């Protein structure tokens, strides 16, 4: 799967019209100089040769050089990636309880007004433009109430003053005992994380509702009820546990998407994550950077689905690998 995705990205980027080197250096440079740059970057070789060189370099952990700056960019990429991980984890922390709550309410009170409300909430989260939601939060909490900063991401003052241990600024602050810096990081994380969290909670809510309703109709649940077990025990031990597999799957999928960079949310909050990095790379046609970011994303998807598979086995003893 990873290989297919990489191949697809590689060839789509090359089929698309337009010359990246020309875009990078501007239209006024003499052609022989453009040729020199092209040679330097190995772009004058046949596409197939480029493709295998690209795969070979990737195997060695070499992402190549940016077409625009003509310098390696691995450090920048990893830095941005870590920022995106922070945001992804924070928004998942918001999304999981909210989504499970929504799903639970709409399954438990099926056919009643409360469930309808939950259902409408999920449709609304599907439809709301995430950047608009972000802007509304910025206006309310950042401008009118003035209690939260409207930009996301660790403030540079904190980021560059703290001694890096893990590279995650929020975590580093905590490890260094810098609680002021930690609080500042969290303050900057709240708005983007809540914005993303709400949007994702709708999807989690919808999937968990369907899963819960499905399990509630099974015979053993009816049997448990007939035996007079309290509703809470039926719900927690009989229904919820057995509905978890699709829920975990969708959470894993969403997490993978988040790690790939939430372009719109990161742009809205000026968050220095993978999403904004990828956006800039696409806009400036920096193919190598786009390829690298997508590679990272593909690997993340693979890793997460691997973890999700392991979690399945824990949840359901019948699953053996």
């Amino acid at each position: 799967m990873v290989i297919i995705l990489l191949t697809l990205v590689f060839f789509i980027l090359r089929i698309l019209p337009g010359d990246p080197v020309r875009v990078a250096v501007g239209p006024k440079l003499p052609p022989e100089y453009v040729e020199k740059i092209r040679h330097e970057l190995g772009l004058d070789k046949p596409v197939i040769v480029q493709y295998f060189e690209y795969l070979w370099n990737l195997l060695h952990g070499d992402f190549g050089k940016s077409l625009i700056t003509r310098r390696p960019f691995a450090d920048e990429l990893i830095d941005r990636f870590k920022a995106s991980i922070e945001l992804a984890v924070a928004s998942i922390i918001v999304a999981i309880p909210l989504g499970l709550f929504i799903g639970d309410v709409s399954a438990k009170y099926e056919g009643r007004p409360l469930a309808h409300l939950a259902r409408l909430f999920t449709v609304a989260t599907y439809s709301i433009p995430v950047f608009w939601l972000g802007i509304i939060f910025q206006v309310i909490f950042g401008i009118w109430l003035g209690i939260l900063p409207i930009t996301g991401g660790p403030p540079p003052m904190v980021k560059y003053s703290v001694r890096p241990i893990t590279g995650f600024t929020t975590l580093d602050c905590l490890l260094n005992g810098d609680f002021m810096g930690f609080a500042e990081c969290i303050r900057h994380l709240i708005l983007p994380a809540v914005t993303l969290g709400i949007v994702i909670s709708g999807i989690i809510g919808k999937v968990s509702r369907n899963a819960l309703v499905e399990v509630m109709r099974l015979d053993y649940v009816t049997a448990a009820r007939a035996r007079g077990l309290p509703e809470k025990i039926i719900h927690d031990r009989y229904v919820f546990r057995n509905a978890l597999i699709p829920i975990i799957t969708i959470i894993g999928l969403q997490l993978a998407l988040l790690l790939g960079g939430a372009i719109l949310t990161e742009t809205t909050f000026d968050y220095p994550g993978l999403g904004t990095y990828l956006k800039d790379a696409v806009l400036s046609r920096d193919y190598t950077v786009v390829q690298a970011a997508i590679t990272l994303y593909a690997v993340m998807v693979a890793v997460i689905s691997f973890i999700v598979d392991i979690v399945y086995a824990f949840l359901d003893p019948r699953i053996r690998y």
Partner: protein
Amino acid sequence: MESLVFFKNILKALGKTHSLEEKMLKVGLVLAAALALMAVLAPYIAPYDPIKMYTGDPYTPPCLEHLFGTDSMGRDVFSRVIYGTRSALMVAVISAAFAFAIGIPLGLISGYLGGVFDRVATLIMDALYAFPSLVMALAIAVALNSGGSASVSSIILNTAIAISVVYIPSYFRVIRATTLSVKENLYVEAARAIGAPPLRVILKYIAPNAVTPAIPIICMNFADAILTAAGLSFLGIGLPPFYPDWGVDISKGWKDIPNGVWWTSFFPGLMIFIATLAFMLISDALVEYLNPRREGMRS
């Protein structure tokens, strides 16, 4: 015919409003009709020319003369929002038409023929499906729009193409799956036995019974197209700044936020939300009619 039965059920559902689905369907259809009217009648509804500058003082807050206020150039936000319906619906219609026209035949052929063609097609579609959709649309839109000073209509067309590429796999997967089950029917076998060529079998015997599940997808495609097009404009790809478009207006209005000017971005965003919601409501209700226990997921 399965599709006919489906439509009959929908018509019946419109007559009553007992369940949530029936209400959702009605509200969605009314909203969608209102949007279409707005797009067609924009010149009669909008009080000002959407690109005329200084119809009032710049940054006039919402008032009676300017219902949604004015932007940095003194343009009327209300008029721009009304006109913005046009580009949004145009992108939605064109992208749905493209995705439909490519995804459905591919799905039918792939499901019917099977073999190597099917395997290759499925592999490519799965890879496309797994790809982060906004990144893909972004990359295609950037590449297509690179031809220097493109006209507004070609930008709208390019945006629609970029979005349709993202949506082709959705049609493909659903249609392929239903084709696989429909082609097991006896009447298909009978048609083949009397020597009907594959094209005829697909068009006359399979397609009418396999395309119903695509109907909710069209609505979802509409909703997603509006959302994605707005997202692309917000990121600064596509339509020129003067053109009345919700995404363009937000991407400009958003920069006024720190000065406390919220109306230049709030109202276009509200329209995106309402337009997307209309089609999502229809799609969500229709899905329920097709299959009461279907899991929905946005790509």
